[in-house]
């Protein structure tokens, strides 16, 4: 069973991303949305939590926060809203770490 994990909080604000990352298994995917996108900035401390994970980031939330794509960690996959839907379809379940 594959799971899509949604994280919408900054890794500097609480431990949601850390908890989600700790529960992810092979085949699972992570999608960072809203304030969760700050974790994908490559020079930030939060990026260390993403090591070894399949990570997507919601593009409109990056743009809103002024984060250019060249500031993201290597391998981060930027998606739009239809890409979000594709991820939901491609996985068996969604776990939203509110």
């Amino acid at each position, binding site marked *: 069973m594959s799971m899509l994990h949604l994280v*919408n*909080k*900054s890794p*500097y*604000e609480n431990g949601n991303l850390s908890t989600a990352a700790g529960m992810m298994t092979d085949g699972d995917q992570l999608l960072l949305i*809203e*304030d969760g996108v*700050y974790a994908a*900035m*490559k*020079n*930030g*401390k*939060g*990026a260390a939590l993403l090591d070894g994970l399949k990570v997507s980031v919601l*593009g*409109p*939330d990056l*743009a*809103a*926060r*002024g*984060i*250019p794509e060249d*500031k993201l960690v290597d391998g981060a996959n930027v998606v*739009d809203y239809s890409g979000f839907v594709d991820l939901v379809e491609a996985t068996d379940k969604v776990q939203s770490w509110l």
Partner: protein
Amino acid sequence: MSDTKKFMYINRKAPYGTIYAWESLEVVLIGAAFEQDVSLAFMDDGVFQLTKGQDTTGIGMKNFSPTYAALGDYEVTKIYVEKESLEERGLSLEDLQHLVWEDEDDDWAEKDSIRLVSRAELAEVIAGQDVLFNF
């Protein structure tokens, strides 16, 4: 004897994910009408409020980031940004808006509003305030 008090607004939340950043800005602008000695501090995720190039068309929310550039016109000229918070998040001053104010006592010279300070320096500035507003 002046009634002027030192007011500081402390911003610790990222923009858009919650309403705190916008609410703070509204209160600052309202408060600016009362001719107090106003300063702003940005620390923790609050430093994300000042990033340049914000474009909210894709999320259907108002982009309030241009308003920070207007603070100088409201005589809000002291904007403290905590260095440790920036560094921890992989940001530098280059990633932030260039905020300025015009000094009428110096032939309207344009001066930087942002003061990059260490955590220890910011603690001293906060200790010297009369009133703190936390957002």
